[in-house]
């Protein structure tokens, strides 16, 4: 396993490929480069141009080879740097449709005949997909290697009408710029402050997701109603490895406190931020004392919302349809906490509805049961 680790390490882990915009685009590469790219060791069918993982390309070139088979064409496309085979499937549906349309020509010949127009459209489509040697062809598709030969399986292909070479020239002028601005620039995984200090750039997102999960589970299991950050900080300790713990002898609690890396506090801060955005927790009052209420376990909040609904649903205006979410939000902000966000309200309403205390009458209206 150690033998090929060198190469595999050059590759970005496949989990992060989606972060590279080149991955989900049709890369406009020189055919020479397409033929020389190295295939991924993790996933066959994915290729690397420098550090960019990709599998879809977009080429424009002269057709120099052509072979027709029963259900597809093979075109050799030459962009003056290389020649690549493009597999272009024939559209059978189109063929059937075309066959069904021929024969019944409109005898009157005047006015707008939709069949006639459709026939013309299909004819235009047919002309642009029938390509002879010497024509200019544009192909978009995914790459594959079959019988040691790299080829493009076209998802889109058409003949380009380029009588004065303007398309070819503009592409030739554009591509060096595209390479300099994009493909030749190494792709860096967007990293946060924390991951910059750790060796693996991928670890932070991973740890953060674990931290959010751990905290959620803890709050649910212990039915925590409110907490302060330092109450839960210890939960995250296992996530951040402390290099000194293995080698050095046991430290006093006091000194351990001071050696807790800022990483843990940072991680906790990010985790709490996510939980707030999701509405799982909220701060009733913004003060020096950083207290977080757990939305679902805040009995006062639940009672306040039930009260609001009970009272307001008696009002004629809301009697039939119930109260709108935004109305509940503004009432609960006046009555309970100015700091409650919409997400937290959604969490409470969902919770109350699960407990059959309230019921939704539409997407955004609730009434008391």
């Amino acid at each position, binding site marked *: 396993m150690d033998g090929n680790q060198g190469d595999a390490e050059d590759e970005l882990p496949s989990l992060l490929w989606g972060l590279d915009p080149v991955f989900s685009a049709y890369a406009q590469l020189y055919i020479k480069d397409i033929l020389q790219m190295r295939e991924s060791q993790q996933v066959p069918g994915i290729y690397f141009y420098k550090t960019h993982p990709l599998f879809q390309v977009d080429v424009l070139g002269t057709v120099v*080879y052509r072979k027709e088979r029963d259900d597809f064409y093979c075109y050799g496309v030459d*962009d003056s*740097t290389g020649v690549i085979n493009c597999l272009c499937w024939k559209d059978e549906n189109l063929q059937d449709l075309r066959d069904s349309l021929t024969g019944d020509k409109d005898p009157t010949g005047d006015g707008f005949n939709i069949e006639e127009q459709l026939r013309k459209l299909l004819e235009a489509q047919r002309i642009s997909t029938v390509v002879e040697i*010497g024509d200019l062809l544009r192909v978009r598709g995914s790459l594959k290697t079959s019988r040691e030969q790299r080829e493009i399986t076209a998802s889109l292909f058409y003949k380009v009408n380029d009588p*004065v*070479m303007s398309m070819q*020239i503009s592409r*030739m002028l554009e591509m*060096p710029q595209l390479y300099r601005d994009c493909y030749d620039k190494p792709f860096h995984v967007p990293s946060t402050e924390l991951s910059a200090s750790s060796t693996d750039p991928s670890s932070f997102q991973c740890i953060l997701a674990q931290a959010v999960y751990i905290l959620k589970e803890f709050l649910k299991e212990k039915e925590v109603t409110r907490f302060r950050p330092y109450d839960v900080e210890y939960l995250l300790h296992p996530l951040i490895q402390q290099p000194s713990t293995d080698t050095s002898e046991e430290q006093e609690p006091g000194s351990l406190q001071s050696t807790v890396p800022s990483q843990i506090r940072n991680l906790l801060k990010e985790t709490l931020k996510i939980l707030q955005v999701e509405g799982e927790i909220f701060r009733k009052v913004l003060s020096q004392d950083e207290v977080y209420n757990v939305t679902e376990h805040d009995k006062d909040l639940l009672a306040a919302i039930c009260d609001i609904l009970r009272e307001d649903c008696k009002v004629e205006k809301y009697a039939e349809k119930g109260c709108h979410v935004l109305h509940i939000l503004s009432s609960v902000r006046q009555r309970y906490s100015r700091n409650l966000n919409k997400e937290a309200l959604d969490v409470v309403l969902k919770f109350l509805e699960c407990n059959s205390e309230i019921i939704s009458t539409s997407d955004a209206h609730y009434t008391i049961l």
Partner: protein
Amino acid sequence: MLPAAAVFHFPWEISSELVTDGASIRTFGRLSKYLPEESKAIITSHHASVEYQVAVKTTFVEPFAPIIGAQYTVLGEIEKSEGDGEVVVHARVFNCVDGVDVALLQKAVNEQRKFFRERDGEAGTH
């Protein structure tokens, strides 16, 4: 089997040592003469106030309707004869592109060459 890639060359480079016998190339020029009985066409172009002629063998692209005086692009293989050193491009593709902006085309070819020179130079130094 796929043919080799036809690299862009300017007409004034065709007879030079840069272009070897059998190489696949593409170039351009104005069609000045067509001799159907010999399957031979002559395309001409000007560069630095010198006129350059490129002979094109048209056996693969016949029949075609020649427009004398129009710009053409040719894509094919170089054939150098032993004796008089005459260079002929055996055309696989011979397209009329009258109206092409030749100056811009030259610029585009030069940009592409410059890009590859820079990139390959970079890779060489590392």
